């Protein structure tokens, strides 16, 4: 199932598929947020913003707005 990253629930994991921005912030890619990598939503602040992610061992926080432009595929169990 493909959803945008901000719809992921706390503790869930998914695989990054693509970005729906025409200008993806380069820094995001450089910090390891690349298609094909696994992402886990570690923690969320109130209103789910910002979101604390673990991408293949890289721990970082991004804002919900940014997350809504990242499409991920949820593990089907």
């Amino acid at each position, binding site marked *: 199932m493909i959803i945008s990253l901000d719809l992921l629930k706390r503790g869930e994991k998914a695989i990054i598929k693509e970005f729906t921005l025409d200008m993806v912030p380069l*820094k995001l890619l*450089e910090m*390891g947020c690349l298609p094909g990598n696994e992402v886990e939503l570690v923690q969320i*602040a109130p209103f789910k913003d910002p979101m*604390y992610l673990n991408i293949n061992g890289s*721990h970082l926080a991004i804002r919900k707005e940014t997350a809504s432009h990242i499409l991920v595929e949820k593990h089907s169990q």
Partner: protein
Amino acid sequence: MSKQLNVALIGNPNTGKTSVFNQLTGLKQQVGNYPGITVEKKEGICKLPRGVKAHILDLPGTYSLNASSLDENVVIELLLNKNDKDYPDVAVVVSDVENLKRNLLLFTQIKDLKIPTILVINMADRMKRKAITLDIEKLEDRLQTKIALVSSRKNTGFENLKELITNYKELSIEPCVNASVIAPEYFDRLRKAFPKQDLYKLWLVITQDVNFGKLDRNEMQSITTFQTESKSNLKRLQQKETIVRYQFINGVLKETLSIDHLAAKDLRSRLDRVLTHKFWGYIIFFAILMLIFQAIYDWSSYPMDLIDETFAAMGEWVRNTMPPGAFTNLIAEGILPGLGGIVIFIPQIAFLFLFISILEESGYMSRVVFLMDRIMRRFGLSGKSVVPLVSGTACAIPAIMATRNIENWKERLITILVTPFTTCSARLPVYLIIIALVIPDRDVLYIFNLQSLVLMGLYLIGFGTAILSAWLLDRILKIKSRTFFVIEMPNYKLPLFKNVAYNVIEKTKSFIVGAGKIILAISIVLWVLASNGPGDAFNNAEVNAVERMQAGDFPESELDKQIASEKLEYSYIGYMGKAIEPVVRPLGYDWKIGIAIVSSFAAREVFVGTLATIYSVGSDEEETIKNRMAGEVNPILGGPLFNLASGISLLLFYAFAMQCMSTLAIVKRETNTWKWPLLQLVIMSGFAYVVALIAYQLII
């Protein structure tokens, strides 16, 4: 050796570059577990084997050679400019064994610049706990480099590193990834147009968003205009480059690195569950702040009383033992009280630095950024603004420099503009002495002390004003900049006692020395102005007083005091004070406070010292600063000069006024124009005057 070896430490933020730097050079630069501690170049010297000397450069962290914030730009500017005197002979890329994959991205980029590059894998001490194993030999082979596995905490591996640096000529300068594979045809054209330049360097120059101030312009100008590709196409190529590099890195690490992911999940997740919790996270943050205030107020009062009494005794001793005369008076009445006025605050300032340092070293600061981002954004700030605002409670100068890692210019500018409202340690002396004079020392609700609550209130006022003015500025300023926020969440670390202790000592020392110099100068000037006067009125003060006593104006026991106060009134400073008095009288101050306020436009902490100097001229009893101030009488209304109304008015004035030259200078430097610091000076001080006026008139 005629030429020194230039070595640059480069790496992602928070990988331990400064720790490695300190180990190599024996210096003590600030280290902290928060990405973006170092924001400027720092240099040092390291002795290498066989008598070679190396000039070591510590740089701000950067995730790649594509700068997106000011601190990152420092690195790129250096690496792209071969004529820079610091241009490295060897680049030492410092990486963190736990984040090797991400760290290697920058490594491969630097290698493409054909600079001899050594890879340092730091934090080796954590490998066992995290069940990490590395095949160093194979990694060296695949990356075509030499590797030093070190631990700056345990001081291991540095001999090897020094050896590698000495033999830097043996390093291969073959690139790992050839960037031209992302668009062979485009790179071909580029090569033909500038046959003399390094290809990857050309590519970097073309794709940078940031302006390069110092580059050799002529040549670069033509490069930046070489654009046969659209801007968005270039962006896409940059992304492709990043992906290609990661593909290479993944391939290499698959063969050489193994991590037991189960062992890696541990403390971090358990602590984060609580510390970044939607509810408990905030409660804990607030509790920590409360603890800090309690410490500053309660725990440090004992050493402070001691210092105050010591200085009073020293003044007395000087007066009794040194031959009487102008020089003795200068020391006893000018210098000692002035210095005492600042030394007394060492315990409090040390406590403040201690807490901030622990927060930074433990990794908690990034969690605060995470918790506060959403709230701060409402006010036009970023979660990252919390760090300047919190460290602004120590001093606005490093705080304003700490804004450099905020990517968004508008958020950064607003943070710079409002940071001086936070209660810095220089305000503390003023607050403390006035609170002690006008607020009763009473317990409220059994556990809180009224005085420490008022102090906390002042901190809240400072913080609240900062936030509200940020909100206003957010509406007023019309600056377009794209918002994009990302912050790394580092691992928790036990603060290293050595690091924290050095931090506290160094910062306290530089505060005292910095303030001490100004205070020394000002107190000498004040003393001279207060013990001399123009014309007869000053010289006749003594005769006048004796005549008035004989006429029965006051009893003989008061003679000395009367002489002193009359002299002061007709001294130079007395005349100056009188000139200011009309301006400050509506706020409830006398001319002496007026002088203290004017002199503290150089630096706030001068206030107490100035008053101490003015009050002690002519008085010869052993007295503490506080007692002298408590004894001052309002010349017009009678009663103590420092009462609730004038006290509150003073507190508020100091809370808001912009009285710090160094801050203004740093704002000018960080914003590149005088416009912002001047606006700060005028608006903040004007606002302070109005608020203090209203407060005094309401309470009186």
